[in-house]
Structures are given as C-alpha cells and as structure tokens.
C-alpha cells in the first residue's frame, strides 16, 4: 500500500504520510523525496502526518534532512496533540488537517469527461519566484527571467515565457509547454533540456514537445490536431 502520497492542494504541495509508525514512515518519506529529487529541489512542502506523534527532536531531524535536499518545510498538519505542540514550539505553521485528509476523493465534475488536476495563477511571476506543482500549471501573465515553474504535468502560459520551465518533472515525457511568446531562459520536458535558439523577430504562440528525443517548438495552428 502506498505509504507516501504527494498532492497539490490549492497552491501548496502536500506530502501525506499514511503509515502510522514514524520509524517505518520516515525512511519511506525520504525515499519518495529522493526518487523525485529534481522535482522537490527548492520546493516548499506541507507535511500531513495524520495521527503520528512527533516530538521536537523528530521534527528537527526531519528539517535538517530536508534542508540538505534544498526542501523547505512550510507546515505540519496532524491530528496528534504532541505533533501539534512540537510544531508550535519550533515556530512551524500547524493546524488540524480536516478537509485535507480526504486524499482518496476525486474532485467532483458535472460531466463524464475526465479532467486532470491543474493550478491556475493570474499574475506575472517575478524573478526569484517559483512554483512546484505535481499537476498542470496554467499562468495568465508573464514568467519573467529568474522565475521558475516546475510541474509534473503540462505548462501553459498565456503570456511571455522568459524564465525557466520544467514540464513533466516527475518523469512524464509527454508533457508539453505552450506560450504566447516562447523565449525561455531554459526549458525542460522530462529529462530533456533545451535553450532558446536566440531572439526571433516575430512573436507567435508556440508549443514545445518531445519528438524523437529532441525538444521541438512548433507554431500553434488552429487546424492542428492533438
């Protein structure tokens, strides 16, 4: 059974620990984080440990381990009063998970068409800002140089892409990146990397996908079938 699951909830990345024994759960957690180390690098995560009791030392050891992997622990959610207290003492955001525990439920759609999880942001990402999300990322705005998006799914930018984007970061080579103005500092899909070929004169909407082991940018055409 899956001991560790990762979900994007609202705007944050939550890691759920389903195993009730921290001694077993902790190594599994580290293993899960190691398997997708690139995705988690630089990420801010919230940890949901349900009813596991964590004392001060447990949390401190965890934080140290995480910061060695460049992962920042944003919050701890738990129903355990001990964990609650330890987190409070260390100044980490904490609360009762309530709605966050329904990790098995699919979101309700009023249609038989199956959709996928995505996060939508209506803003421009400025230098130094980053988004880590296991699903698709949709931005209505620009992605400025010095900002980054690391998504498990596709990345759609209704604006200018000038920063760094990594689509399919959890190992999905079918992911795509779309932008109205494709001028990324660096673009990755799965484990392939490409840089912009240089300043082109005409700005046009483009899609990037992996084709025969190469990242290819194509102009978006209405008649194009997908």
């Amino acid at each position, binding site marked *: 059974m899956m001991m560790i699951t990762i979900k994007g909830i609202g705007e944050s990345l939550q890691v759920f620990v389903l195993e009730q024994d921290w001694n077993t759960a902790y190594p599994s957690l580290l293993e899960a984080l190691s398997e997708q180390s690139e995705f988690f690098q630089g990420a801010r995560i919230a940890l949901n440990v349900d009813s596991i009791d964590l004392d001060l030392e447990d949390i401190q050891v965890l934080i140290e381990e995480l910061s060695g992997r460049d992962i920042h622990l944003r919050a701890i959610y738990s129903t355990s009063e001990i964990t609650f207290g330890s987190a409070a003492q260390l100044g980490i955001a904490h609360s009762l998970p309530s709605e966050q525990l329904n990790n098995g439920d699919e979101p309700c759609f009023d249609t038989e068409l199956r959709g996928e999880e995505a996060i939508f942001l209506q803003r421009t990402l*400025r*230098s130094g*800002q980053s988004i880590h999300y296991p699903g698709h990322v949709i931005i209505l705005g*620009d992605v400025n*140089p*010095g900002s980054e998006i690391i998504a498990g799914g596709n990345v759609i930018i209704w604006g200018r892409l000038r920063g760094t984007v990594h689509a399919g970061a959890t190992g999905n080579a079918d992911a795509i990146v779309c932008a109205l103005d494709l001028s990324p500092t660096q673009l990755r899909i799965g484990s392939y990397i490409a840089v912009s070929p240089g300043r082109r004169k005409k700005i046009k909407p483009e899609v990037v996908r992996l084709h025969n082991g190469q990242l290819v940018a194509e102009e978006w055409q209405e008649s194009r079938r997908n």
Partner: protein
Amino acid sequence: MAAEILTITSGKGGVGKTTATANLGVALASKGKKVVCIDADIGLRNLDVVMGLENRIVYDLVDVVEGRCRLRQAMIKDKRLQDLYLIPAAQTRDKTAVSPQDMVTLTNELRDEFDWILIDSPAGIERGFRNALAPADMVVIVTNPEVSAVRDADRIIGIIEAEEKGPGKLLLNRMKPEMIERGDMLSTDDILDVLAIDLIGIIPEDESVIVASNRGIPVALETKTLAGKAYNNIALRLLGNEVPFEILQYKDGFMHKLSRLVRLGGTR
C-alpha cells in the same frame, strides 16, 4: 504634517540609489518641503559624502538606536537649504546593528516634524534592505537600462509586493538616448515590459552627476544640468504635479528635448 516615508532601493548595487536619495532630498527641500534623509547602508555609508556633509558627522543612526544620543543630535542640517537634514549611517558597524523595528520606531518619532523622510537602502535583499523597507509608505526602485539591473529590480518588486509595500515606482537612471536609438541599449518600453510598474522618472546619463558627487554638491541644485532638471521633475511628480516625461539630450549646447509618450506600465 504627517510625513510620507519613501524608501529608495534597487536590488543591484551602483545603479544610483544614494545619488537619487540626495538629489530628491535637495529637490523637495528646494520646493519648500521639510525633508530628512536617512542613510540605512550601515558599514558602507555614502549619503553623507554625496551630500557633502561628511565633515560634520558627530553622531549617527546606530548611536541613536543604541541610545547614546538623542535623535536631534544625529541630525545634520544642510546649510544650503531651508529644511534639509541628514541622519548618517555608522561606518564602523554593520547592518545587524539595526533592526526593522528600530527603523519603524525612529521614523515614527520623525513623522510629525517632517513632510518627507527619504531612506537610502543598501543593495541586496537581506537585513539592510529589510531595515530600509520596514517603515516605507512608498518605495522607489532605481534601475539602469541593463539586463542584470532589471533582473534584480524585478526580484525586489516581487519581494515588495509580497510584503504588501508594493508595487512601487520606477526610476530609470543613466539612460542614453543615442544608444537606445542604435538599438544598443534597453529602451524604456523594454524595461516596463518586464517590470510593469509605474514610472516616476527618467534620468539621462550625465557627466555632471560624477562631478557633483565628487564635490559634494548634489546635481539637483544645478537646474541647468540634464540630471538636475530630471531630479527636480521627479520631485514635482512626487508632490502630485503632472510632468510629462522627456529624455533630455544635450545638443549643440542647447537642451534639446525629445518628448516621448511613455507607456505607463500598470500593475497586473
């Protein structure tokens, strides 16, 4: 008379924050306002030098914060203008000597006495910048038409927006119209395209700024210079006047004004 607290910052070093603080102070004071400039760059103080007041420093910002003197004792009056004062930074300490809360407490003491409090922020995004930002009502971000400066300015604007002090106003410093025309320099539009905040002023590249700095006579006192005129225009805009943007060029000894319609970048 509750003062407006304006923090001048940039991210990148050397783009013209200190020069801007000194000159905006002079320009506002020359229009009859009561102004105090505070140098928050502890350990690397420069505002006193640019204003030509370094010989008169007895007490500094850190002395005030650590209780060795009263606030008044650290304030140096600029004799050239009616109501312009400087609180210098300390040179022998560093930015950990002052906290953001210290800056808020200090500026609150000054609010009733002055019309404008200008804070010269150090470069960077760490403690010194946080100190300078803490009391701000308004932030001016100084940048040069140069990619690294713009990148850093974007970072700063992001931080300011996150701290709810945003979006700030942009001051473009060291513009060279000839280079822009040749396509060798970022234009105002190129920069506003990325930064997307309102423009408060454009200062052209002008040798008289360096000369003035070395003499300790802020260029805003010389309204016949390009930079001096531009700083005075910014002061007028800060005071609520509508002054059209111009890129001023020296041409055949005359001031040749190129009027440009500059698109104001709004926040998105």
